[in-house]
């Protein structure tokens, strides 16, 4: 089921939380939603789940508009809100049964679905405990179980791994990836590594506008532009090496990073690659390469670049 946002705008009073954004998510895609605090991530997610009504613009889930038929849209969405609200007084299993009934799961299938959720989310030992008695990580699992119980076509997760320990984080990521193969998933996160590990596509928004959209490789390439190499050349005088590097015609910039160890950072010209010319130069002068590493722009750098002002 595809999700399509068309010129979505949401204002609170005079403040534009989401400002005219449009994007589309296809079935089988896991979209990571990134942005600084208050960028409009949660507002966008709440609009998709029909909790908030757009001030203008439209959202379609599987071709159904949230403005015209919210109840039909809600049936296909599994949603884990950021604060993970739960009825603390209810035992886990009763809570899941309550949600199953609200989701109109046929009576004969309810037990099966609940058992499945308890297995998938690892709640076997806690199913009869009241939610109040659970730790934060287990509560998060209950939140995930209630979002998944009706086997939704679309999954919206607002910071799904907060409060989980590293093992659980890996489990949940695997689960999201598995679900994401057939379903449409949108997840928001503050942890860039997590988004990079789980998402096929990343969308960065800032002040209510989309500032970057693409896979993590694409984003990195976009931000970086030219190739950057970190190279250590030994066996010669470092100033001579520096001069020679500057004379290579594919190189646009040379920077001496650590003069004592003669490590340089080399930026190539547009579209050019400098590894081979450097190697040839060394061969010619009788120097040798101690190390050669391509410097990748990290997603953090991309994030900072597009959201800073």
């Amino acid at each position, binding site marked *: 089921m595809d999700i399509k946002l068309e010129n979505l705008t949401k204002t609170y009073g005079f403040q534009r939380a989401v400002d005219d954004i449009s994007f589309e998510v296809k079935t089988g895609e896991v979209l990571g939603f990134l942005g600084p605090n208050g960028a409009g991530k949660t507002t966008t997610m709440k609009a998709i789940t029909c909790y908030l*009504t757009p001030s203008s613009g439209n959202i379609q889930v599987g071709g159904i508009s949230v403005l015209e038929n919210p109840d039909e849209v809600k049936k296909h969405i599994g949603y884990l809100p950021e604060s993970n609200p739960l*009825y603390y007084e209810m035992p886990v299993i009763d809570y899941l049964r309550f949600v199953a009934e609200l989701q109109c799961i046929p009576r004969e299938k309810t037990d099966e679905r609940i058992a499945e959720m308890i297995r998938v989310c690892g709640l076997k030992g806690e199913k009869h405990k009241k939610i109040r008695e659970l730790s934060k990580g287990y509560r998060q699992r209950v939140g995930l179980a209630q979002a998944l119980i009706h086997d939704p076509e679309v999954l919206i997760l607002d910071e799904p791994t907060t409060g989980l320990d590293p093992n659980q984080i890996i489990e949940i990521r695997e689960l999201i990836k598995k679900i994401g193969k057939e379903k449409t998933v949108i997840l928001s996160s503050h942890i860039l590594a997590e988004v990079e590990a789980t998402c096929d596509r990343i969308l960065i928004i800032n002040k209510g506008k989309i500032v970057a959209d693409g896979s993590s490789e694409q984003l990195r390439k976009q931000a970086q532009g030219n190739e950057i190499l970190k190279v250590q050349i030994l066996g010669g005088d470092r100033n001579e090496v520096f001069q020679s590097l500057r004379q290579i015609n594919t190189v646009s910039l040379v920077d001496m990073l650590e003069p004592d160890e003669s490590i340089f950072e080399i930026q190539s010209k547009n579209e050019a690659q400098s590894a081979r010319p450097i190697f040839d130069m060394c061969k010619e002068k009788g120097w040798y390469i101690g190390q050669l590493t391509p410097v990748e722009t990290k997603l953090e750098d991309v994030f900072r670049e597009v959201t800073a002002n």
Partner: protein
Amino acid sequence: MKSILTITKRELRSFFDSLMAYIMIVAFLGFSGFFTWIQGRDIFFVNQASLQSFFSIAYWTLFFFIPALTMRQIAEERKTGTIEMLLTKPVSEWQIISGKFLATLALIIIALLLTIPYYITVAQLGPIDHGAVLLGYLGLILMSAAYICIGLFTSSLTNNQIIAFLLALFIGIFFHIIFDILSNGLPGILGNISHYLSMSTHFESISRGVFDSKDIIYFLSIIMLGLVGSEAVLTKRN
């Protein structure tokens, strides 16, 4: 309809799980029993086989108890954010409100059913007007429904339970007694309006055994106004 009942079931369970239901029932039976049988203008004082004195006491006890039951119903969901969880499921605001309304009404009806022994006892003491008793109970139920809707409405306005409780009492006291007092003091049309708005006018006429569609319309209007008002407040969340 199924979603409404799902909500009703959960609300009722939470009343009983949180002991709220037991406290309410025990307190209600205690108060009304004490003043009906033991103290003041009780049943024996009237010298007549009638439940009138019970009805006028229940009229006051329910007035105070109902806001205590309804105050957390929406306010707490707003505070903990569970309302967001509910509203992103395929249920409408109307279904949530009416589910909660039915749950509280069911609890009040349970409490009233437990006073049936009063009726049986009094019926043993002398000839009793069965129709009047039945209408008296109907009056109590209608009045409770009206206050539940006022309580739900104030609970939907805030996420602070105490404010919801006090606001419900504040609105309620107008219907309960202030309009009645005003109707005696105000001249002409204003007096008539106050007289019509006063809950006691309608409650007394029903509990005396007079079944008039005017009274029924009065109660149903308050109920609908409260429900629609709460729905509007919930819908206006953004």
